[in-house]
């Protein structure tokens, strides 16, 4: 209705047409900026440890939530993975009359590879999503701005405690996952392969050396750092309200899982190289 108070004048200039190259360049720029922002947030989360204020209580709360809270899924999954490993490898070894080797293989596979990576992915599924949705919700409801407005640095209060808690708790969860996995493997080998429990444990423990344990407990620390920083980054960069929170949550889990698997390749190569040189 022209000429009435309800009329709102708008700029009606046509939007410029973008070429495919412009769109690709724009996407690449956004990706580079995202990598830069993620790297800066990760670096800040570590740098915050060196200076005060430090939030010990928040870190303990997160250790409880991430560590103790993830215990059931890690233990249950670990038990069944160990048992399945024994069934799969045992059936192959039995064909060559080497069923006794099952304990060796399962122990090495669990401690070096399956334990850390599966624990990382399981905790990423639970905690990266949890962190992203919690921080994302805080962002869209202006709680993060409120925190800044009251003189608190959100990277200190929200990011560093979560990163530190995850880095500290994931190796412990991995250790428990490894133990319960071997327990599951033992049960499967006793009932399915008719191996003795003592024989299984003796071979499993003897198969492991210090380099395996180093590898098995270094990886979870890196995975913990990845899954916490990805969750924080996605949560603190939510766009588009509550729908954006849902999207960020999904992206956090997917990205953290993929990054953990990709990091596994490089960490394994590095660990094998260092294992040969040092041990």
């Amino acid at each position, binding site marked *: 209705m022209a000429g009435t108070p309800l009329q709102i004048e708008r700029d009606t200039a046509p939007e410029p047409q973008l070429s495919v190259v412009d769109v690709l360049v724009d996407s690449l720029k956004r990706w580079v900026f995202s990598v830069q922002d993620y790297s800066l947030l990760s670096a800040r989360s570590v740098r915050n440890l060196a200076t005060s204020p430090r939030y010990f209580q928040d870190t303990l709360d997160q250790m409880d939530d991430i560590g103790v809270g993830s215990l059931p899924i890690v233990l249950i999954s670990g038990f069944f993975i160990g048992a399945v490993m024994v069934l799969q490898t045992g059936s192959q070894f039995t064909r060559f009359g080497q069923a006794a080797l099952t304990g060796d293989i399962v122990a090495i596979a669990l401690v070096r590879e399956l334990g850390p990576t599966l624990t990382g992915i399981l905790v990423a599924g639970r905690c990266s999503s949890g962190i992203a949705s919690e921080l994302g919700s805080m962002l869209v409801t202006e709680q993060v*701005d409120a925190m800044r407005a009251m003189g608190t640095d959100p990277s200190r209060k929200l990011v560093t405690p979560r990163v530190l808690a995850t880095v500290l708790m994931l190796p412990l969860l991995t250790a428990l996952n490894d133990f319960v996995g071997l327990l599951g493997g033992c049960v499967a080998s006793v009932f399915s392969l008719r191996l003795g429990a003592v024989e299984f444990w003796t071979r499993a423990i003897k198969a492991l050396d210090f380099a395996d344990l180093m590898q098995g407990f270094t990886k979870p620390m890196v995975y913990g750092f990845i899954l916490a920083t990805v969750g924080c980054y996605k949560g603190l960069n939510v766009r588009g309200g509550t729908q954006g929170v849902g999207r960020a949550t999904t992206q956090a889990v997917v990205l953290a899982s993929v990054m953990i698997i990709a990091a596994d390749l490089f960490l394994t190569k590095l660990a094998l190289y260092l294992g040969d040189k040092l041990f």
Partner: protein
Amino acid sequence: MTPAIAAARSDAGPAVVFDNVYLGFDEGDILRGVSFSVPARETMVLLGETGTGKTLTLKLAAGLLKPTRGSVSVLGQEVSAMSERELLHLRERIGFVFQEGALFDSMTVGENVAYRLREEHVNEEEIEPRVNEALQFVELEHTADQLPSELSGGMRRRVSIARALINRPDIVLYDSPTAGLDPVTSQTIISLILRLRDVYGVTALLATQRVQDGFALANFSFDKETKHVVHINPAKAAKDGETAAATRFIVYKEGRIYFNGDPQELSSTKDPYLRRFLV
């Protein structure tokens, strides 16, 4: 340095100065050359349609955003040139009441109000009486142990005001404090803002779409003796030698200041755009 900025750098000068401020995002400039100053103890009401930059103005004043051009000075310090670490200290002198309250939903009302004091490591014995005093000010002392989700929208805004005044800030920034509230609750919120202004003498920036909020602040005051909100009588105030806290209006249009004047000028305007706010 412009004269306005130079004046703002001393405590005797204006509490807030915007000097030719531009702020833009991917979709273009939202604020385009905004300049104004707010003397100490004065209230500036920011009026405008949705998306014209009222909230952004408040966030710029609190240093939560940086202008793309121009400068913002608050309490004699140029916030647009300060690092985040320096800003965290300055924000201890600024209170911010967010549109939806932005209360921390995992904390009780009492913990929300005490948040700033705990961040400043104030003794626990001192915190409780100060929290009670702030909650009494907003008449919500009985809600200290409740969670924000258990409160109504109006109560959440009142808690937000209590949280903002807990450390007696020099400036309080109100982002649409009455938006979405019924008339009675809106009146309660405005009465609180009046009390905060007249009891503690704070400088205020109030973003709103309701012109009546601004006129209420201009025409009423809180009588400290009778503890009632009373109509300002200019003749009596002049006779008693008192100066009523001044209230001025800014009206935004498409990111620019369309009007900057006192309530009388606004109420007597013949400008069709401004008349739309007076309907």
